[in-house]
């Protein structure tokens, strides 16, 4: 019966205030009273509560949306279909006219006029040579001369691809295909046991070979001699060349990533097709899969925010239901909608439905963050800024590593890589899945737990600033009765976030030259860890400075240090063995060997921060963090043996 009663409260609230009619109207249509509501045990009732709240949420959203939005949305959708068709017809004109080329032969000029990136000028060869400064490329008597600038090089690349495409179109029509394509390459991939220990971008091989031919150390496995024939008919090969020669247009180069493509033809390629994977291809997957998810999670964020405006969520909170049920119930419709969107997209691009497996943790992660941001933001602009910031960071966390899909094992940090692999038709293992998604699952779970603890009137309707609110939220999960246990748990659950931030650092710094990448990572990793460890202590300190007697201070530091160490080791053993074995791993996560050394370090660092807080007050946090980071860096350098 409770829903009906709440509906009345809203009607009463909304009656006198016309200008807010849109918001109050959503409550004017009371949610159907759950007739036949019977207590059937805790699990059943929780499920029932969630279902009720989910239904309520859907109804509320639609009542807001249907008023004026639905007709406009339908019109926009129809327009979108038309515009998409138009864009597909006309192509995307973003790189038009970037390069100027001068050609002396009209037949050659005709080859490049269809590429809108080029503005083609025709002139006599003498004039072209005289004015060559005005062109990025000059083609005179069959020779291609690009200017020595970056732009000239880029123009030359574009031109070379166009020319290769033209040649392919001629050769593919030849009756004797093996005269046109006399050389075929069969690429065989060989697995190597050592993967992450070669973090450099192709600048050196870890074991420099001697002057003569190297001799294998392990036992030699017999490799069968490859067959000299292709085992495929000319017609099938012709088809492959035809499909792959279309790949060169600026748009289709990206859209082709989505089509489960030519791999069906086996691994045979002509030398021309032998190319490293293009680094930006996976960005299309970000647009296709990640942006719609981000977009729909906005609705959830807004729904949470709306509950907080003018205390509108009060009736919801007064329902005799657990807060976790409220949160899950509000979230469920969005989760299902996002899953449905992904399924539709997957079916539309004819990809395997396995793609959904790595997408689910991304969806959950987005929703968890939307929930927290919706609960934290004070105003709409704050909501916008924080959510845009979050989406950029999350998108780059997903996108950066996937650049290296097929190239380097670091790519597996991101679930997006699994999507790239699935779309390609490459298999991945359960271990890969755990490796790529565990951080998403864990951080989402922790965020939900924090949200559930703080989903109450005091927190939701507070007018405090952003950072104090975050502190309050942490304070909410630190029970006053058991401060040390709370610190232990807080340090433990901060681990997934720390790892995520450090992974981000690894990915960003990975490409700097060797000593710099390691040093930047060293400092960043130490700073992130110290900040995470200080969070709990700082929260407690602000809540009750008198709690920190020297004895309690030491105990609190110990609890934090132990919690952090336990969490670190647990997650390491579970997921990240591959990275932790490398030199980068030893910087990030300390050595796996002895336990008392890192424990001592964590303890000392927390103690530094806590002591400086006690002696200098809140303002001493930054210097304290700085000192702790310094100590941490020195320890890491010592472990790495750089002092010897």
């Amino acid at each position, binding site marked *: 019966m409770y829903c009906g009663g709440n509906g009345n409260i809203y009607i009463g609230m909304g009656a006198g205030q016309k200008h*807010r009619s849109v918001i109050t109207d959503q409550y004017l249509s009371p949610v159907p009273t759950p007739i036949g509501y019977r207590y059937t045990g805790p699990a059943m009732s929780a499920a029932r509560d969630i279902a009720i709240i989910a239904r309520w949420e859907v109804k509320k959203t639609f009542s807001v949306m249907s008023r004026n939005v639905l007709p406009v949305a339908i019109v926009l959708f129809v327009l979108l279909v038309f515009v998409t068709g138009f864009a597909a017809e006309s192509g995307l004109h973003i790189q038009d006219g970037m390069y100027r080329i001068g050609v002396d032969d009209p037949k050659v000029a005709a080859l490049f006029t269809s590429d809108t*990136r080029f503005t083609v000028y025709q002139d006599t060869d003498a004039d072209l040579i005289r004015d060559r400064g005005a062109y990025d490329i000059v083609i005179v008597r069959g020779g291609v001369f690009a200017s020595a600038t970056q732009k000239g090089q880029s123009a030359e690349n574009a031109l070379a691809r166009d020319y290769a495409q*033209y040649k392919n179109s001629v050769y593919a029509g030849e009756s004797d295909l093996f005269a046109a394509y*006399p050389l075929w390459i069969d690429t065989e991939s060989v697995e190597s046991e050592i993967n992450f220990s070669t973090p450099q971008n*192709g600048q050196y091989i870890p074991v420099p070979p001697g002057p003569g031919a190297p001799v294998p150390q*392990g036992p030699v496995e017999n490799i069968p001699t490859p067959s000299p024939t292709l085992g495929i008919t000319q017609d099938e090969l012709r088809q492959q060349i035809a499909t792959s020669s279309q790949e060169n247009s600026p748009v289709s180069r990206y859209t082709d990533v989505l089509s489960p493509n030519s791999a069906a033809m086996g691994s045979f390629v002509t030398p021309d097709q032998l190319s490293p994977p293009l680094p*930006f291809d996976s960005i299309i997957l970000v647009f296709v899969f990640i942006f719609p998810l981000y977009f729909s999670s906005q609705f959830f964020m807004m729904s949470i925010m709306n509950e907080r405006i003018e205390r509108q969520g009060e009736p919801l909170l007064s329902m005799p239901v657990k807060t976790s049920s409220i949160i899950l119930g509000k979230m469920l419709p969005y989760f299902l909608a996002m899953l449905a969107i992904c399924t539709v997209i997957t079916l539309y691009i004819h990809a395997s439905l396995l793609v959904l497996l790595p997408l689910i943790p991304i969806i959950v992660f987005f929703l968890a963050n939307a929930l927290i941001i919706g609960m934290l933001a004070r105003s709409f602009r704050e909501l916008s800024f924080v959510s845009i910031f979050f989406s950029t960071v999350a998108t780059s966390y997903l996108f950066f590593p996937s650049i290296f899909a097929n190239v380097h094992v670091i790519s597996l940090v991101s679930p997006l890589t699994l999507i790239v692999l699935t779309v390609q038709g490459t298999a991945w293992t359960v271990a890969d899945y755990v490796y790529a998604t565990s951080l998403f699952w864990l951080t989402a779970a922790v965020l939900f737990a924090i949200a559930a603890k703080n989903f109450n009137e005091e927190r939701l309707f507070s007018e405090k600033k952003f950072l104090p609110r975050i502190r309050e939220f942490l304070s909410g999960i630190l029970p006053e009765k058991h401060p040390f246990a709370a610190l232990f748990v807080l340090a433990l659950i901060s681990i997934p976030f720390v790892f995520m931030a450090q992974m981000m650092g690894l990915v960003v710094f990975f490409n700097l030259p060797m000593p710099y990448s390691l040093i930047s990572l060293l400092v960043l990793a130490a700073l992130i860890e110290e900040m995470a460890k200080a969070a709990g202590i700082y929260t407690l300190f602000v809540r009750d400075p008198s709690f920190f007697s020297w004895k309690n201070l030491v105990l609190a530091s110990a609890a934090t240090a132990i919690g952090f160490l336990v969490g670190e080791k647990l997650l390491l053993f579970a997921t990240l063995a591959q990275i932790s074995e490398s030199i980068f791993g030893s910087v990030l996560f300390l050595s796996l060997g002895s336990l008392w050394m890192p424990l001592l370090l964590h303890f000392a660092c927390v103690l530094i921060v806590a002591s400086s807080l006690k002696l200098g007050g809140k303002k001493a946090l930054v210097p304290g963090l700085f000192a702790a980071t310094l100590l941490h860096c020195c320890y890491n350098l010592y472990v790495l043996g750089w002092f010897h």
Partner: protein
Amino acid sequence: MKGRHIAVIAKKESRGLASEKTILLAILLQVFIALFSSFLMVGLTAMYDPVSLSRYSHFRYDIAYAGNESPLLGYLEGSNDLRVHRMDLSTAVELLKERRLSAVVYVPDTAPGSDDPVKITLYTLTDDLQGAVVDVRLKSVLLQYEGDLRTIRAGRLDVTPIPLQVPASAGSGDFYGFVYGLLVPLLVFLPGILSAALVIDLITEEYQHGTLETLISTPVTFAEMVWGKVLICAILVPVQAGAWILLLSLNRIAIADPLLILLHVTFASLLLILIAACCALYYRERTAAQFVFSTALVVILLLVLALPYNPLNLVARIAVGTAGAEQWIVLGAVMAAVLALGYVMQKYAGRIGGRSAGEKEQGSG
């Protein structure tokens, strides 16, 4: 309509933005994406740009050659980047697994003039940067060999393509095209999109938090209030876009004519901001307004991108220095659209303002 009132509102909003430290997040965001582009610069050019790779040309990759003699062996040995070892296939693959070789090439016993193709087997490591780099180097050698074989078999071709001497190094990565043809136009238009979203927040907030009455009770009219909000959002655009261009040039991505780009971006963004403001005035509620605006934005962007000489393309052209006089026509069209939409919004806001003033009188009376 008084300029002073508009300025007062703009100032109030800018103070609001500054006091909430969230603007810091926006700045952090810029630095972050700048870091991203430097990451692209350092990492990916080294990987995909053969010119920058030649910096490491003192290093020679060890590869193994197995199988039969062929001219390919000579080409491989002639390459500056590769050191070729002849050995049998099984040993070579084992060495590859131990990472002491970068690639293994196996060549069968097929005559150059044979009716069958020459099928080479290439063994490389999975998930390995080095393998990708070696692929780039092997490719040029293999293309050379393919050319030879084609010449030998040329008599069997029906048509020969128009010959063109394209330098062998060409055709690898396209970093320049990506940066100037995609990254730069998108980055400088990003502030416009953000500002449009911001104006929706600023306007709907007055409605949803019920602060509109207080504002209307001051001498400021409703239309002036809306223009003040539009103004502050519009001012943010060139500031942010300018910061982008500055950050890009710090990353050694030189932009040919920054001021001209800012001019185009500011007016095109103003158009977006006005559309967003109209959405917000109509819906008065953030979720609906943002939803309709962002869907409309997708339609508009797609339509604009499909047109030649669109503002994004102009930015790319200006950035690389190939823009012509046609840009002034486009700018004129955008300005005309801004004026038209500004007039519509003025009328609409005036109507709403008149209505809410009427309501106010009714309420008090």
